[in-house]
């Protein structure tokens, strides 16, 4: 075990320079934490943009608080201009999906957890891993810069439908859209390097005894997510490059007047976009599974069907993209095919929900902050999943497509689903990452405020959608049939601001606990996982000696044992490892 001897030596005296240790680090734990800070920053940016959107929708045509500070071209007299509004909508979606939620789930947890949870000293390609993080800097930087260039940032929606996006004359956006494309291509490269690493690491670097069906569901989920990313993100990169060429060197891929196909953009985008939806929810499912088993002190109900359900979702995720395009002018017979595949993909999601309920059944549920967030994930994912069924039915989709019903659905999945799981994960692994506990009391306050205001913000959006309110509309009061719905918009806006403010509690708790938090022990949650058998935070090289795995990942409340958890490294005889 020469390599491990080396790793141990590293752990004993870590002689890396400051820059190698904290800046250009190849240690997966440092990279995960770097991703955490970066994506929380982008979460803040995306959230602020959302506040701008909500102000305009709640109080159209009124000056925004502090809006006077913005340049006149962006917000004349502090009032959001129509083009600014379109930019806000576009950049909110872009930042949240590509730079906040995806790196939070994949960049943070895949990097931090995979090697620790499978008993590897680091990733398979640590240097590529470092590049994967450092490419996010130019990518996010270009996207941020596009907010400030002449002509404004991309204003064609986060889906940047061609030809609006491909032809500057139509959108009035020149450089902003090109920067958007460039940023997404670099993002794709970063995601690719990360995913190659995650897949190879899980395939080749599992500790002795860590068989495929002993992998925790979080690792399974992150592995499947990486597979999805490997297959889907290159399609986006290819499409975005074509879009960029349409704008810069005069190609005609999406320009109908010379034989290009605008619908081809939508097909390519959603061939990436739908797997992307699962990239954003599968890791959340995995994280929630780990935390729910821990909180309920019970093995996960139906472990192998959970795994097969995720594999099924991953595969079916590639054959449902057309359901974003039911009303796009696509052949209606093909749309029917997509309706069936979409309906089928709901089944594995249902299985997962029932299995989580089965896990809680006859458990001994500890209501810790991570557990509360994980439970919120389950209950919100139920709503998001059920509202998706409306869209799967093609005739109903004809009415609700492109309305606030869709906006409600996506936020129930991406905020109610993914973000609650992200919060759960941060509260849960914070002691491992930083060696200190976050405050449980303030964590619960944050959870309660978020849960309440989140629902008050997004649930009424269903009603707006049923009333027919279109998304991405600068001023809904232009329409007679939407004017009666305006009080709902005001209500949503107020709650959205309160939801935003509630996150200050999280920020204070997160930053405060870095310095003042109670010192964490090795295994504060009494969890069975491998990462809890090493120090908090783990040393460089992770484990003092190669761990050996003897059990499945969720051996809680095993009959005949004193403790209610059995760490995976405990040999079957009961002797301590």
């Amino acid at each position: 075990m020469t390599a491990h001897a080396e790793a141990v030596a590293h752990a004993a005296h870590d002689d890396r320079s400051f820059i190698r240790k904290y800046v250009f680090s190849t240690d997966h734990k440092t990279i995960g934490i770097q991703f955490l800070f970066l994506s929380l920053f982008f979460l803040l940016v995306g959230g602020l943009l959302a506040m701008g959107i909500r102000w305009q929708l709640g109080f159209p045509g009124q000056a925004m608080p502090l809006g006077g500070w913005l340049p006149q071209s962006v917000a004349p007299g502090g009032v959001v201009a129509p083009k600014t509004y379109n930019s806000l909508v576009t950049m909110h979606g872009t930042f949240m999906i590509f730079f906040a939620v995806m790196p939070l789930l994949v960049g943070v947890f895949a990097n931090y957890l995979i090697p620790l949870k499978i008993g590897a000293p680091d990733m398979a390609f640590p240097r590529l891993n470092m590049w994967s993080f450092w490419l996010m800097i130019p990518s996010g930087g270009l996207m941020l810069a596009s907010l400030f260039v002449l002509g404004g940032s991309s204003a064609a929606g986060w889906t940047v439908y061609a030809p609006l996006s491909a032809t500057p004359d139509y959108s009035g956006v020149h450089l902003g859209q090109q920067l958007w494309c460039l940023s997404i291509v670099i993002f794709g490269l970063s995601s690719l390097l990360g995913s190659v690493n995650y897949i190879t690491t899980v395939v080749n670097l599992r500790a002795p005894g860590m068989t495929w069906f002993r992998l925790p569901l979080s690792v399974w989920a992150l592995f499947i997510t990486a597979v999805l990313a490997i297959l889907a993100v290159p399609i986006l990169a290819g499409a975005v490059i074509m879009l960029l060429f349409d704008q810069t060197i005069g190609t005609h891929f999406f320009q109908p007047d010379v034989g290009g196909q605008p619908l081809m953009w939508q097909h390519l985008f959603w061939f990436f976009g739908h797997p992307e939806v699962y990239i954003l929810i599968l890791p959340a499912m995995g994280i929630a599974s780990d935390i729910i088993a821990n909180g309920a002190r019970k093995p996960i109900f139906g472990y192998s069907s959970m795994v097969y359900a995720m594999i099924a979702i991953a595969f079916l995720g590639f054959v449902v993209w057309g359901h974003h395009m039911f009303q796009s002018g696509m052949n209606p017979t093909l749309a029917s095919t997509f309706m069936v595949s979409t309906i089928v993909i709901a089944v594995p999601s249902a299985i997962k929900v029932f299995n989580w309920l089965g896990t809680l059944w006859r458990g001994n549920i500890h209501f810790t902050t991570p557990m509360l967030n994980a439970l919120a994930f389950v209950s919100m994912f139920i709503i998001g999943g059920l509202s998706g069924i409306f869209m799967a039915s093609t005739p109903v989709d004809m009415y609700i497509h492109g309305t606030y019903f869709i906006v409600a659905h996506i936020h129930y999945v991406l905020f109610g689903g993914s973000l609650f799981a992200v919060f759960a994960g941060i509260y849960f692994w914070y002691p491992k990452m930083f060696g200190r506990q976050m405050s449980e009391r303030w964590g619960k306050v944050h959870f309660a405020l978020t849960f309440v205001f989140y629902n008050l913000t997004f649930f009424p959006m269903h009603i707006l959608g049923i009333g027919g309110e279109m998304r991405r509309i600068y001023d809904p009061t232009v329409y007679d049939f939407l004017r009666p719905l305006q009080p709902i918009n005001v209500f949503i806006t107020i709650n959205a601001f309160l939801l935003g403010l509630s996150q200050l509690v999280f920020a204070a708790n997160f930053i405060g606990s870095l310095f003042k938090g109670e010192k964490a022990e090795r295994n504060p949650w009494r969890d069975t996982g491998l990462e809890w058998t090493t120090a908090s935070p783990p040393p460089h090289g992770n484990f003092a000696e190669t761990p050996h795995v003897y059990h499945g990942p969720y051996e809680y409340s095993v009959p005949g044992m004193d403790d209610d958890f059995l760490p995976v490294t405990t040999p079957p005889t009961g002797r301590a490892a």
Partner: protein
Amino acid sequence: MEAAEHKAPNYIAIWGMLAILTVVEVAIVYFRLPRRLTVVSLVFLALWKALLVALYFMHLRFEPKRLLYIVLAPLPLALILVVAVMHGFRGP
């Protein structure tokens, strides 16, 4: 467990085969056969060449089956994408 265990294939023979197939391809184009026949035979020849490269030069033939599954994974998806989009446009 590595590649050294199998007998190295005759690379020069495969090279000759690839060269011949290329010549045949170009010849087909200049013979101006019926359009459909041209397309079908060219696609067939291209796949044949691609397979030769993948199986022998990239020695997929001698790798464990599980690696083969990883490699084959994207092909059905690529096919689904292209075929679906081709049929996605509304009929006249």
